[in-house]
């Protein structure tokens, strides 16, 4: 295995072109924090590190956008953006090490998704190095843009199987002036679901809501952001629904768990019944689960139309699920063949052996 650390998008494309000619497999790597996610690659000939692609290219703060190279860490990016009171509204795992490219490729968003959407909603342009050495741009630097196909979305969550992201442009949000976190303890999962539905049906605009479940009574954490007046009014409204304790944003610290689940928000309680470990599930229905019975849990979740994706190997289970991709899998394979006909990019890591 060879490690390469290109200094530019052009050099990245050149490495891919050469690897493609040799039929050598390329494993793109950012901070290396999520190497366990997805299935293990079939071959690892070249490890392509984005460590040297770490510049914030342009923070157009007055336009609320930033263009940043793929290897820049999330924390470094956020520090730069904070100089102008802005942020990329995501809260991925291990921000000090995780990179822009890695977070995009693995689609790792956190609890802020409820209010600000996912990475797919925040990324407005990418530059991609393709297997054949093409360097291609999609989207642009403006928030609103419908010219051409939105390849930024195609590569978000594609685990580097279609090309290597060398830089990306995002829309930004202002850092909140004020924040406040409250926690409600509820006796059981049924009560949790009832309260959660009430909160979501009220005209509150929390930035994040999560359910913590495991041993003991479940808890619901709610994060408010905005003006002091708005926050107080909303906390008061929430207090009319349930007793609350003031807590800290620390409760939203991301959980490093064995699997990511996605279920419908109204079926969170049902999903967590008989949970043997612990789980954090957001109001969006996305959650992180630690359990010794992931197979059974996957079966149950898939029967409800959701998904369970492994974040570290578990009993030789496929990371994505045996039927992942469904009737769109042939099309996904066709896309892979068009972008990477020789299958050199992260081979075998993605759904259906892609």
């Amino acid at each position, binding site marked *: 295995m060879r490690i390469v650390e290109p200094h530019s998008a052009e050099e990245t494309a050149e490495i891919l072109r050469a690897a493609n000619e040799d039929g050598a497999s390329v494993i793109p790597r950012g901070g290396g924090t999520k190497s366990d996610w997805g299935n293990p690659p079939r071959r690892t000939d070249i490890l392509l590190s984005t460590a040297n692609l770490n510049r914030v290219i342009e923070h157009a703060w007055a336009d609320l956008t930033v263009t940043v190279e793929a290897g820049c860490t999330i924390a470094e990016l956020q520090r730069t953006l904070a100089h102008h009171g802005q942020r990329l509204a995501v809260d991925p795992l291990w921000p000090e090490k995780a990179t822009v490219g890695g977070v995009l490729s693995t689609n790792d968003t956190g609890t802020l998704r409820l209010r600000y959407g996912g990475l797919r909603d925040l990324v407005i342009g990418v530059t991609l190095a393709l297997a054949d050495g093409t360097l291609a741009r999609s989207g642009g630097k403006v928030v609103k843009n419908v010219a051409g196909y*939105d390849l930024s979305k195609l590569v978000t*969550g594609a685990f580097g199987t279609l090309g290597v992201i060398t830089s990306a442009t995002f829309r930004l949000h202002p850092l909140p002036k004020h924040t406040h976190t409250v926690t409600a303890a509820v006796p059981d999962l049924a009560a949790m679901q009832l309260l959660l539905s009430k909160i979501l049906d009220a005209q509150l605009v929390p930035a994040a809501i999560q359910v913590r479940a495991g041993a003991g009574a479940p808890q619901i954490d709610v994060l408010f952001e905005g003006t002091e007046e708005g926050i107080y009014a909303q906390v008061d409204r929430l207090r009319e629904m349930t007793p609350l304790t003031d807590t800290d944003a620390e409760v939203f610290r991301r959980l490093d768990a064995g699997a990511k689940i996605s279920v419908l928000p109204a079926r969170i309680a049902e999903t967590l019944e008989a949970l043997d470990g612990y789980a954090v599930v957001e109001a969006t229905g996305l959650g992180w689960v630690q359990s010794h019975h992931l197979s059974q849990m996957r079966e149950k979740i898939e029967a409800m139309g959701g*998904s369970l994706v492994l974040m570290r190997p578990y009993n030789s289970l496929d990371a994505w699920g045996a039927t992942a991709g469904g009737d*769109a899998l042939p099309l996904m394979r066709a896309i892979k063949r068009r972008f990477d006909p020789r299958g050199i990019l992260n081979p075998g890591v993605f759904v259906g052996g892609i």
Partner: protein
Amino acid sequence: MSFLDELRDILGPNGLISSPEETRTYECDGLTNFRVMPLAVVLPTSTEQVQAVIRLCHRDRIPFVARGSGTGLSGGALPVNNGIVISLARMNRILEVDLANHRIVVEPGVINLNVTARVAPSNYFYAPDPSSQSVCSIGGNVAENAGGAHCLKYGFTTTHVLALEVVLPDGTLAHFGSKTLDAPGYDLAGVFVGSEGTLGVATKITLRIMKRPECVQTLLAAFNTTNEAGAAVSGIIAAGMLPAAMEMMDNLAIQAAEAAVHANYPNCGGLLLVEMDGPVAEVDTLIAQVSAICRENGSTEIRVAQTEEERAVVWKGRKAAFASVGRISPNYIVQDGVIPRTALPKILDEIERLGKASGLRVANVFHAGDGNLHPLVMYDRRIEGQEHAAEKLSERILELCIEMGGSITGEHGVGEEKKHMMGKMFAEPDLATMQKLRCAFDPLALANPTKVFPTPRLCGETPGEYVPHPLEVAGIAERF
């Protein structure tokens, strides 16, 4: 049996239109300067019928163009030569309302505003609100990734589409996305939305609906110049606020709106409309801040609309802005370009200069928060050379958008109208990469084949898994 007979077999006598008198209705969409007569128009009522029609097209290599309400402004639903039009207008049922999960499942022919109408009794709404929302269809919104005044805060159609049932260009059915987020696999719903009918036909669409904000207030501020109004917008952004909408109109656009719908706007050089929504306490605070910022930047008059009725009046002039220009000019071109918001003063100066140089007036309406411009280039067709000059000017404005780091379209799409501009906005490798995607979906180029891209291309052989040559298998030759 002829192709048309086979179509009639699938759709029944009422589902097929083939006489020229009747197909003429479909010869163009909202962009009327391009016209093509379709071979036939089909009006399917089910996914199965759409599939059967497309299978037939695939067998006989007949291109097809999907059409919703035909309100598109870039010629996306313009028929193609020797092709058929698939109108989804009769597939207009709302299939499922799931309030508990904030989801609604609709057929493509459902009118945008009807989605909100269906869930409004429970105080929910569907966020994307293109100005044509009372007539445009969800299927068309999906094809064009429709925006609207409120996408500054709530995002575009793509943000609100969770899942799609799609008939692919070979007639197979595929499901993209899921009612739950982050379904494993490529984000095909993400690339399909905004693909302008070139990747297949959506037959079922799962949308996100949202709870109505507790309170909405709309502030109207008059300025002497658009530059002052623009400075106020910058001030609002710099103060860390994200309004639900931020719209600007210049004096000509105001005059047009007054002539058409009597919106009672102040007669000024630049009008700014800022909408805030959320909890009452929050909105009250923010509107006060916005007022202060507008005053600091020279606003001569500020009004705040608080009731539903007051807001409707304030919005009426803005929503009718395109049509209103017909009151002050016999002909006009509606343009749609995007610039980084901060380049606004610069491009407005340029537009004014270019307008003067070509002897044409340009009214400007824009989504000021996200830099999406809608210059309305006015001309009189009866005056020789004016139409041509207007087209030239309109195109020059798009080139300026590209030069300033923006885009040739923010929400109307590329379609037929702007495909020749794609090569100016993107480099050849960018376009070639987009073609890879198109070829994966539609190797025979049957779905709206002549749109979006400047030159038609062939996809060539599907690069597949390695297939050994028979001579290799026989051990007669080998590859190196």
